[in-house]
């Protein structure tokens, strides 16, 4: 089935003249010299951390983004009391369901972190065009994080910023969930916390997938929740993979806490029975079939006029 947006895209592309109005294509017979890129992980975001830019961003975050978020996806914030004595800076590690997670979290982390926090954003997605890179680094203090390959540059930048006192919001899943279930956390976050010697604050965000999930065709306003956990410190001699797993378990517990209550969640955690965000293990097609039942094709919605009921 062809969506309306696809039809519009197709119509637009057929009406746009080609070269020289569009950039030329490169002959496959000609080898292309790798161009020194100033985009992606190489984009220099330093300008976005200068005081005038920070001031404008603070005004935007508190004066525009926060009221807008409150109006469209009103969040209920839990666990802020757990961060009362948490050290600054810190890494906020949250599950990732939607593009709304970033403005929601950035505008609702405690005030002592809020205006000196950078956000780890996919270098390949948010920094692939000059305008996008400028927009996200300026508006959201985003820094490029290489998701598809190991890049020392992006981890070094994050580490140096943490050492300079900047906090970091990061989504360790590496991308938005495609189906509403969580994805495994990457170990890079634990490595970063170890190197910068900062705690990790686990965060669970609920409700943004329903508002604007990865494959949503429309934005649906609705309530959201944020649950902050206790800061996690890496134990001496702890393996980074184990620490990464511990962070993920904490987010699972925060999720279960919202589903049930704090006491139930604590009891489940004590016996290692916290349900995982990643959902049940898939052993065969039947499990996947059941798991994705909520996404089953619904019959076409037929508008009737005049309404008979």
């Amino acid at each position, binding site marked *: 089935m062809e969506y309306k947006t696809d039809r519009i895209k197709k119509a637009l592309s057929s009406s746009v003249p080609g*070269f*020289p*109005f569009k*950039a*030329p*294509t*490169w*002959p*496959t*017979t*000609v080898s292309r010299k790798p161009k020194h890129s100033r985009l992606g992980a190489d984009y220099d975001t330093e300008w976005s951390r200068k005081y005038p830019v920070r001031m404008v961003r603070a005004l935007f975050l508190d004066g525009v983004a926060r009221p807008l978020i409150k109006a469209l996806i009103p969040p209920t914030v839990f666990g802020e009391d757990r961060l009362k004595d948490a050290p600054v800076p810190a890494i906020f590690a949250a599950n990732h369901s939607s593009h709304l997670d970033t403005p929601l979290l950035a505008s609702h982390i405690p005030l002592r972190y809020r205006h000196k926090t950078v956000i780890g954003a996919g270098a390949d997605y948010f920094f692939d065009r000059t305008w996008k890179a400028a927009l996200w680094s300026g508006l959201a203090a985003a820094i490029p994080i290489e998701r598809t390959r190991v890049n020392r540059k992006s981890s070094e930048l994050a580490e140096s910023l943490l050492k300079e006192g900047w906090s970091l919001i990061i989504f360790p899943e590496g991308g938005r969930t495609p189906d509403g279930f969580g994805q495994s956390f990457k170990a890079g976050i634990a490595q970063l916390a170890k190197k910068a010697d900062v705690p990790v604050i686990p965060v669970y965000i609920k409700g943004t997938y329903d508002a604007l999930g990865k494959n949503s065709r429309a934005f649906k306003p609705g309530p959201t929740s944020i649950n902050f956990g206790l800061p996690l410190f890496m134990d001496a001699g702890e393996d980074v993979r184990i620490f990464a797993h511990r962070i993920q378990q904490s987010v699972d517990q925060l999720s279960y806490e919202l589903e049930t209550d704090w006491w139930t969640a604590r009891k489940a955690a004590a016996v290692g029975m916290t349900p995982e965000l990643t959902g049940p293990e898939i052993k065969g097609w039947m499990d996947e079939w059941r798991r994705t039942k909520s996404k089953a094709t619904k019959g076409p919605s037929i508008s009737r006029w005049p309404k008979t009921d």
Partner: protein
Amino acid sequence: MSPRPGFILDVDKSTPPSLFWHGEGFRLEKLPVGSRVIYPPEALDPLKDPLGTIAQALEHPVGDSSPLSSLLFADMRLTIAFDDLSLPLPSMQSPDIRQMVIEQILDLAAAKGVDDVVLVAALALHRRMTESELRHILGDRIFDSFNKMGRLTQHDAEDPSNLIHLGLTDKGEDVEINKRAATSDLLVYVNVNLVSMDGGHKSVATGLASYKSLRHHHNVKTMVHSKSFMDRHNSQLHSSNWRMGRLIKEAGVKIFQVETTLNTNTFPDSFSFLQKREWEWNLKDRTGFIAASTALGKTPPWLSRKILHSIRSPYQLTGVTAGEVEAVHDITIENIYKQQLVEVRGQTDILTMGLPYIGPYNVNSIMNPILVYCLGLGYFFNMYKGMPLVRKGGVLILSHPTRREFDPTFHPSYIDFFDNVLADTTDPLEIESKYESAFATDPWYIHLYKTGHAYHGVHPFYMWYWGAHALDHLGAVIILGGDPKTVHRLGFMSASTMSDALEMAQSFVGPDPSLTHLHSPPLLMADVK
């Protein structure tokens, strides 16, 4: 980064359309997959100290020659000849290289107290230049110092009082050249060597010669056997000039030759797209192309011509050599090849090329149909070494509007040639035998040549002969976007689209032909193996 050498692109599906000159405009043509596009080498790095290099060249000549300063003495007759405005193309930004060289020669002459100095523009049978053109080539300082004293002259090939017959070559060719130049104690010739055809003995033996002398090599037989006239050792045109040059030397004419080579930095920054490979066009290049092609397409031809002819090329000097003619020329040729030569493997069935608004004979004027013919079949076709880019019996597709437009001031005899001669025949041999003499000796054309700014009456014949080798070699010529009636008069076919042209070409070369596009600007010379 050192400039990249020439390049041959194999066209595939993702190759963007190729740029074609189309007279005062451009075309972008998608060439069939499998075609080849020959791209010229990038512009060579210029000399860091042009003035210092010129001084060095004059004082350290090559071959059997003494330094210029030692050849100058107080009571001597010194003649300085220089190439006319047919070189370089487009005219270069001030200061012109001729000005830079001649100013230094004159400084040396002044230091030696040489009073009798005459400057001669080596026109051969070209039109006389206007004051502003001479000022551009020589600069105001030289023009003002020499013109009012009558010491800045333009060679008159029809002035018997200033011509001298130096004898016959061993092939019986008359050698008759400018008397002042021949009877001077020293003749210094200042060349601009844009292509490998320029310079050597051709400078004096052609540039300062009379019709009587020129007809020995500017004829159909010589041109058909000049394969090509850009390759001196395989060019009868040059063999004849070399025989004449050696006779001039034997007759006691002392020549100090100065040859200069330029890089191919042909167009200013606003036309940067002309110098780049299409897939490397950035936003600025694409914007420049769209702006230029749209603007030129919307203006009438006379206005677009005016705009384009006002372009001054940012050419830069890559070499200066001075001394004995043949020794100098050997070095010059090496320099030119270094800039322009591209090695190409094998010939092609169809050769395509776009023709620009300018050629050697229409600077500040109209590219009339005969000049279109000459530029395509004469100059561009002959930009090869070894063998022609297109096979015997192949097809040449030229892109040019080819309107029936003439400049009556500069090209009066061309109009009659087009209307009367080509109406009868397009066969070069027949044209030569039936009509040349009448045009060459017509008193009205001679009068216009001597007193106005007209090309000599015989000049359109020479243009036709320049293309004789291509006519003899090719199976057909198609002019893409050319005015059908005008193109038909030239003896060619016109096509409105490239696909039409290719379909027409297939009836001559068979199905599934190979195609090569000669990408210009800038200029390139194919070394076909």
